[in-house]
């Protein structure tokens, strides 16, 4: 009877802990970003493809000289993605349309709940209160999980050094500007003010207001408001986002919710299961022993006379 109670208690205790973990996991899924987080609203209807943002980023982040000059339009012939040598690139879409080409700036979108941060097992990434997702190269082991995890293909890897692994991506000019409340270099240089810097919460209102005021100019969607749990970079577009190379298949849940339940189980499995199952094993073994011993005893007793 005592054993049965012990087993019951173990089961109930284990289940409670497991459930508790899961609930906690779900609760953090409603995180909507830091209230004072900054962001950038990209209005693709304003961009003229001058690539000044690329040049400004290159100089601000002290990146190597580009392969070709920043006023060379030939780069638009191919879709580019951010690399370790260019944290931001401008791509051209809708070239054949009579309404003219649409340019789209690509860089790290600085998610509210970054997948890179989730995937990193050495905690090299930090989401700062200012909204930037920054990276600590000192602890990075170069596994490149973040590059696989990122839904926007933002991180680039510096393959030049085998001994010092460095992932490179846009950090929203955190060290040199954002920390002091100043806008990133790309925003400051943009001649068309296609990039608007401000509090993320304000930018969302601003974006919807632009759509309301000039509904013919935009499709009624702010990309990044909800995608993967929300991003600090937000986009407005004149045509469907799928036509501008955006991934429109992304869920509104942050990437972490795909693994949160599972990861919430890990501590429980690691801490409770060994104790629980060793307990059960020992009990069963004892029981077997006891019964066996008893049987032998009785057998012996039987054989004695």
């Amino acid at each position: 009877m005592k054993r049965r109670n012990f087993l019951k208690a173990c089961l109930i205790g284990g289940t409670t802990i497991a459930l508790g973990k899961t609930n906690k996991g779900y609760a953090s899924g409603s995180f909507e970003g830091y209230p004072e987080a900054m962001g950038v609203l990209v209005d693709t209807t304003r961009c003229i493809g001058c690539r000044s943002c690329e040049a400004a980023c290159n100089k601000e982040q002290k990146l190597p000289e580009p392969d070709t000059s920043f006023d060379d339009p030939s780069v638009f012939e191919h879709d580019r993605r951010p690399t370790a040598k260019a944290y931001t690139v401008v791509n051209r879409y809708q070239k054949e349309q009579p309404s003219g080409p649409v340019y789209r700036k690509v860089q790290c979108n600085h998610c509210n709940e970054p997948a890179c941060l989730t995937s990193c097992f050495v905690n090299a990434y930090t989401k700062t209160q200012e909204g930037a997702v920054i990276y600590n190269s000192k602890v990075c082991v170069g596994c490149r999980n973040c590059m696989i995890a990122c839904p926007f293909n933002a991180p680039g890897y510096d393959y030049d050094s085998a001994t010092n692994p460095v992932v490179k991506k846009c950090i929203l000019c955190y060290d040199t500007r954002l920390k002091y409340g100043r806008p990133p270099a790309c925003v400051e240089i943009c001649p068309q003010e296609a990039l608007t810097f401000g509090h993320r919460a304000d930018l969302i209102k601003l974006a919807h207001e632009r759509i309301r005021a000039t509904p013919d100019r935009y499709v009624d969607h702010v990309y990044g408001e909800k995608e993967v749990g929300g991003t600090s970079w937000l986009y407005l577009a004149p045509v469907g986002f799928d036509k501008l190379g955006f991934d429109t298949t992304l869920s509104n849940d942050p990437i972490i919710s795909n693994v949160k339940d599972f990861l919430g189980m890990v501590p429980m499995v690691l801490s409770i299961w060994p104790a629980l199952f060793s307990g059960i094993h020992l009990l069963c073994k004892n029981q077997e022993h006891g019964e066996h011993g008893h049987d032998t005893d009785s057998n012996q007793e039987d054989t004695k006379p």
Partner: protein
Amino acid sequence: MSSYKHLIVAALSIGAISVSSPAALQCAPVPDSITLNPNGKLFSPFTFNHSKHIQSIKECADCHHHTTGTLVLDPNCVRCHQNSSPTAVVSCKGCHSATPFSPETLAAKRADKQRYHLDKMGLKGAMHQNCIGCHTKVGNGPTGCQDCHPRTKEGAAFYSTNRKGAKPAHAEEE
């Protein structure tokens, strides 16, 4: 009849301005040319031919919104500015901040809860959008960066112009 009334209102308001501050009328002369980008580092300063634009556009409100006191054409602006009198300052920089995203500007914007024009563009954005927008629409004005303001030496280095013609990385891969 209503336009007649407006004229009276306008005349009265101009009279009021001239009585209260005679200087306001004195600073009214329209400049023939304006030096834009005066402190440009990457692009050099250049002269904007104001009189030529007045001749070809004729409508002050196209660039100056409601500030010059002429008829406001934008249906959205008319809702408030139909009877707006001319303002003391009509230059672009008078309303459009040169530092629209500085911590100070953003803080002032957040503090002012009554503010209507929350999405007011900065000076650089307003000018480029106005100029390039109109030049593209009308189709007979300069739209390239250096068509208006030539690059300085510093600007050439900034845009890595010496590398022009070098093959982009993706071209080498092919």
